[in-house]
């Protein structure tokens, strides 16, 4: 309907040219000034995300795969989806001990195993780009190697967070890393497990996405 396009644009243009819209400069100072100290940031991320039922686990660069495995075993997970082509995926593969939950590779299009993903996977593991102190959010850039559904379909989402990858605000993340120069297929902020308050304002977790979100803080 290209005539809709031209008539809409022509009408908007004529109206605007007849009466320009008065604007005021956008002053981002209020966002620029939201700052926390390095220690405060992690503390704040934790506090805000815990308030919406996110769980935190501490680990080190050395032991995080073992920490994740132990956690998932405790949680009763039998199958764990992961991204074998990522750095974290390689670590998981090489250090996953026998006898724990089974690792399932996300290395083919979802169309080939949709049913299995929806019905047979207990947990998914992803990396993050960091976390945001202002709102208590994880930043994820899914990719060909680390697909989007890893953090959505499995009932438990394990998110790996490097303890020094912390930002003050969402605005800071995107301006400092120049997101505007090239956005990925999908960029995400995740601030807790899936939730709803649609039944009489009563909070319930795990409505469509993960029921549990576990942030593994790696130092």
């Amino acid at each position: 309907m290209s005539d809709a396009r031209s008539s809409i644009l022509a009408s908007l243009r004529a109206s605007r040219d007849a009466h320009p819209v008065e604007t005021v400069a956008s002053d981002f100072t209020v966002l620029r000034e939201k700052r926390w100290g390095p220690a405060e940031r992690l503390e704040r991320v934790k506090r805000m995300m815990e308030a919406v039922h996110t769980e935190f686990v501490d680990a080190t660069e050395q032991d995080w795969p073992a920490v994740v495995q132990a956690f998932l075993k405790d949680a009763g997970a039998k199958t764990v989806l992961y991204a074998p082509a990522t750095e974290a995926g390689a670590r998981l593969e090489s250090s996953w001990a026998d006898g724990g939950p089974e690792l399932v590779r996300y290395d083919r299009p979802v169309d080939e195993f949709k049913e299995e993903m929806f019905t047979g996977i207990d947990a998914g593991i992803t990396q993050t780009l960091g976390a945001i102190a202002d709102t208590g959010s994880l930043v994820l850039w899914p990719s060909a190697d680390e697909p989007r559904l890893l953090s959505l379909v499995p009932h438990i989402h394990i998110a790996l967070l490097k303890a020094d990858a912390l930002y003050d605000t969402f605005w800071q993340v995107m301006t400092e890393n120049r997101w505007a120069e090239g956005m990925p297929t999908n960029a995400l902020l995740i601030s807790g497990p899936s939730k709803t308050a649609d039944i009489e304002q009563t909070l319930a977790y795990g409505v469509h996405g993960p029921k549990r979100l576990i942030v593994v803080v790696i130092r």
Partner: protein
Amino acid sequence: MAHAEIDFGKASRAALQDPQLRANFRRAMDGLMSKRAAQFADSAEWHSMRALGASVRLRALSKLPELLEKLEENCTRNGITVHWASTTDEANAIVLEIMLRVNAKLAVKGKSMVSEEMHLNAFLEKHGIEAIEADLGEYIIQLDHEMPSHIIMPAIHKNTKQIAQLFRDKIKEAEYTEDVDQLTGLARRVLRKKFMNADVGISGVNAAVAETGTLCLVENEGNGRMVTTVPPVHIAVMGLEKVVEKLEDVPPVLSLLTRSATAQPITTYVNMITSPRKDGEKDGPREIHLVILDNGRSKIYADEELRHTLRCIRCGACMNHCPVYTRVGGHAYQAPYPGPIGKILVPQMEGLDKRGAMPHACTMCNACVEICPVQIPIAGLMNRLREEAVHPGPAVKDAGAQASKAEALVWKGWAATFSSPTAYRMATTVLSAVGNAAPASLPLLKEWTSVRAKPRFAGRTLHDLARDRGIPDV
């Protein structure tokens, strides 16, 4: 009245008689108001954020045609197909055409107010396509064949008992329970199957970024991510005012939106979509379509004052704070958008003949103006529409539709009385002498006194009393 089926006055009176409904709204709105206030406890921050939000929206409106072209250009480059629709019929036809081409039988929907404007579900159903609402609130009201009663919390008019009963009646596998976790779990099971099998996902858009061709969506449940990631085709519908210029404009808009709407610092998910599945990627839709809908918006944009309606970011805070909305609830408006924003938006979209009553359902208390995160002068626009309703003119559809000779005559008489000292003196003398004797059941007076005490005229006028004290007439 030309539209007998839409009678706001009648629907409001009925709603006011329903104590359960009033209790549900009162409780919900009180909670929302106090939680929102806590989110903006730092008043300096609130003022700066709000000024920033308003500036972002004004800048977008000032370049609206260029930004829409830029959005189209960048989306197209990213692989998103852009469609334009002047009317909701055109938008529905576009959606249907895509569905038929991919042979779709089942669509899953994320929450979208524009799709409510389009009555998209009913339209698709007519063409044999099942469209399932996946947002829990929308799912609940879809089961009950209702309209949303709030733009953020569509099922806010129902309590848990009512929902428990509804699920029992409408979902095969359901047993009666008032446990919210169990009710939610049931919806999860039913809807996960739908996500898995859907041919098309339909969503709205909270902000579309011209600079990068990115569609931003906020939500808590994950249904928005499901519908935009799992099905092979994603169709996004947006009103043409939803565009912002730059990516960095998104954080302030979303922050104001989520804090104002549900008092959350941010929603669980912020989902930014820039392209369909690229080669080598393992999930995401293979096709994305963006439908840009006008439906009266370009006409709203033509008026210098009324165009500020288009700043709105659909946070719903104005309804939460509206004394009228809180009492009559969302359904009384019989419109996709209720509350203050509905009262200024819907009459402009659908015309003052059909919707002339809406701008009058306002006490001018200004609560909405004080909390609107993008500083829309809602009450001022409401006044303007009241004026448009009685004066024929080009600015608003069906302007002048409510002009009444009797009302015009009353105002003429009032003006004459108040501009002539003699007439004024006579009128007040007569009223203070016999005004109180007038029965409350007199035709015009009855309208007022049916729900209010009859005003009492003082025995002597203010002028009289002043004269007694030696203050001379001017």
